């Protein structure tokens, strides 16, 4: 078991009377790449800012390496932040930007020069020492921001949607860069994003948040394959979320048809939500599947076709490399292992966490 590095205990925070975080508890282990994932306004950035020391929680405390740092000023914390819009010092050149933190710590000149060289090499920006930030591209500026943060040898690097402003290709490149960096540096990364693909690609541990609550925590595989509620299912990748009835253990009635599944313990004749990933929906010739329907839309996506099949009044989202022409009649078949059954939200509060549920 990895060592616990950061612990957030019962954190609450409100802005202008609006509750952003409500009794949040979170443990971050050493050397993990942790991603806080959620839509805007879910509290992920506030959580990061509380860890960084830029916000003070109304309730609760932050423990870092066994020490309560709730009221510690940001400049005294052993962590550094990479901001969404880079926040470079535009009046200083790249070298001066990187040297900023070292200079405050009164490091000798040689040490600073070595560090600058090392950091620039690490982020692939050798030769850019005397460029001004405004003359660099977005990706380059982001690399400078990362270099500026890591030269201070923080125990934790906080990254607030650092790739948000970059274009797709660059974003993908930077994702691999960040993974590589994390491995080379051997420190903890806490990464905030609303992009589930980014989260799935880079993280060791994902924390899905919505409206101030943690919805689910786990490895990327756990989160993707076994979403605990409709919000997570919907937010992580495309999903078919269907209101259904659990007939008994290992049998669920979806849209009036009984499906065999692997889930147990929901009781008998209980309303549940069922999640089926679009790539898990198989289209088979008429008569060979469980439910019959008609293909209503087809879009070519490159890797696969995205099809919409109307069956029993529900529009099923289907991803497949095999094309079924629009208008053609097909049957739907789902492997029992791919049917994910989830509890329906019971309280109103829980309902609020789940705006997409119908």
């Amino acid at each position: 078991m990895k060592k616990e590095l950061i612990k957030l205990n019962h954190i609450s925070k409100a802005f202008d009377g609006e509750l952003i975080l409500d009794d949040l508890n979170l443990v971050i282990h050493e050397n993990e790449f942790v991603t806080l994932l959620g839509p805007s306004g879910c509290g992920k950035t506030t959580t990061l800012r509380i860890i960084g020391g830029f916000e003070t929680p109304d309730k609760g405390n932050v423990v870092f390496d066994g020490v309560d740092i709730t009221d510690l000023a940001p400049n005294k914390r052993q962590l550094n932040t990479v901001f969404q819009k880079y926040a470079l010092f535009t009046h200083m050149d790249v070298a001066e930007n990187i040297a900023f933190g070292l200079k405050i710590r009164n490091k000798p000149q040689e040490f600073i020069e070595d560090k600058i060289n090392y950091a620039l090499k690490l982020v692939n920006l050798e030769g850019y020492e005397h460029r001004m930030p405004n003359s660099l591209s977005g990706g380059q500026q982001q690399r400078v921001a990362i270099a500026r943060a890591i030269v201070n040898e923080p125990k934790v690097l906080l990254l607030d949607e650092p790739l948000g402003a970059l274009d797709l290709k660059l974003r993908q490149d930077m994702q691999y860069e960040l993974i590589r960096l994390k491995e080379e540096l051997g420190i903890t990364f806490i990464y905030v994003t609303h992009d589930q693909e980014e989260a799935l690609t880079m993280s060791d541990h994902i924390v899905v948040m919505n409206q101030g609550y943690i919805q689910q925590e786990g490895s990327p595989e756990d989160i993707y394959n076994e979403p605990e509620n409709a919000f997570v299912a919907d937010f992580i990748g495309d999903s078919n979320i269907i209101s259904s009835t659990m007939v008994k253990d290992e049998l669920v009635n979806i849209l009036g048809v009984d499906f065999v599944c692997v889930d147990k313990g929901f009781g008998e004749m209980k309303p549940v939500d069922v999640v089926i990933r679009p790539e898990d929906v198989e289209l088979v010739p008429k008569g060979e599947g469980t439910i019959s329907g008609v293909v209503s839309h087809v879009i070519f996506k490159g890797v696969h076709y995205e099809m919409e099949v109307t069956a029993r009044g529900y529009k099923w989202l289907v991803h497949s490399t095999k094309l079924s022409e629009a208008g053609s009649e097909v049957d739907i078949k789902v492997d029992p292992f791919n049917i994910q059954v989830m509890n329906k939200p019971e309280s109103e509060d829980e309902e609020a966490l789940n705006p997409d549920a119908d």
Partner: protein
Amino acid sequence: MRSKIEKLYTGIIFIFMYAPIVTLMVLSFNSSKSRAKWGGFTLKWYINLIHDSSVLNAMANTLVIALISTVIATVIGTITCVGLMGVNRRSRAVIMGITNIPMINADIVTGISLMLLFKVLHFETGFVSVLIAHITFNIPYVMLAVLPAMKTIDPNVYEAALDLGAKPFHAFRKAVLPNLTSSVLAGALMAFTMSIDDFIITYFTKGSGFDTLSTKIYNEVKRGIRPEIYAISTIIFAVVIVLLMMSERMRNRHASVRKDAPLYKVEKRISRRRFILMLVPAFAIIILGMYFGGVFKRKSNQLFVYNAGEYIDPEIIEMFSEETGIEVIYDEFETLEIMYAKIYQDDAAYDVLCPSDYMIAKLIDNDMIQELDLDKIPNRKNIGQQYMEASKAFDPGNKYAIPYCWGTVGILYNTTMVDEPPTSWDVLWDEKGAGEILMQDSIRDAFMVALIRNGFDPNTTDPEELAIAADDLIAQKPLVQAYVIDQAKDKMIGGEAAYAVTYSGDVMEAMAGNEDLDYVVPEEGSNVWLDCWVVTKKARNPEAAMKWIDFMCRPDIALKNFEFIMYSTPNTAAWEMIEDEELKNSEVAFPGDDVLKRCTSYTYLGEEGDQLYNDMWKKVKTGE
């Protein structure tokens, strides 16, 4: 063709922009005091400037006020902007609206409001009140420049610096402030300019004995600007140009650095730019030190003197200070009416005034001056008995006033511009003199001319007689080149007009400056006037005031003063000491009895009488 038009257009623009300044600069080297006549190249106005403590003092005041108010307003304004970034948008808009009020508000309203506030709080007006006023109106200008720049700064930049270990202030200074430098400097420059520029607010909050260049120049404008003012304006303009060029060069040099710089330098270099930036506060501190060291030390022993413009030899003021150790704050008024208004306000705390006859009566009538402590003015024995008698007309017991100067009002004329020497006021209504006539811009003198011409008493309060006089003055208006006060002298020296209604004292100096000039007291009669020293009821230093008056009565001082201002002295002992026989027997300076017989002095007309004259004068000036 097109390029020619472009060039012409550019040329015209340049002329419009720079012709006034060039005129001013050229005139600052003109050895003739007249603005119309080139008297040859001279540097004497610049040299005079060094000795002109009043202008230098005003200049120092202006700079000190501008510097301090700029620094304070810039700091407060910038901090306020930083604070504003922390509040939500709606409160920010409200706060901005409130802080902008002094800027949007008419200066006159701001000025009067501040004046009233200072009065209500019993805050003594002077340097500090002006400084506070300037800070007040400068803050919004700084904020106006800084806030938009502040808004463009990513708040994360500040947090990034904190994150990298900087303490809050260090983070602000190193990460945020450099991005604001240009706008903070722009704001400061704007504030500095506004402060130097300001006249109205300063005028209302300055109280007595304190002048900035703008209020000083304003006083001069009313009386005719002295060439020294052209000189100082030229210097200011030149300094500004040099500063601008320096800052431009500095910026260019800064931009061209950086190429082969080493990777990173830790040691703190003091760049040239930073060195110059450090010089500015150092310079400011020096000025401040000099200023406060000099001005505020002897506050307890000051004497506030309020006299007409160019009506004393400045060396005499210095001599008085040297002999008695009393610091003299010397202010000048344009007309007696302005003086009266100023004294009437509480905040004008003058000790000694030098008004004329009828005004003295008015001051006594309104209980605004005090009886003199005659035992402390032994030198009053030097004043000729006939003048003490004459002053009984307005000061029956000789208790309030000691005569200082006297003279007649008459016509100064240029012998080369008239057919024959004038003998009557009628010449001022003669079509032949159209455009060549200068009238006095003072109510009593102007009406005196018209009243006497129509055979009335110059002290009349009969509305019908005044109406006739007013109509006469209106009829005369087309012929009049200008209504002037002290400029009459300069204009006549410069040959700009043929006739001017003038005080005899000015005549002496004018005739010395242009030998074509001559003077006549018209046969119908005229005004004889007597200016005296009086002490205000609210005088804070009556002791020093008595010393001042006694000093003025000393024969050597009276003589020295007479030789400088050339106004007839009532000091018989001094008159006897005049060596120049021609001057001693001058008909202008010391007219014979026949002239004096046909002259009347003004009497106080009472509130109603004053109002009547004021109304009539307004009618004359507006022509309705």
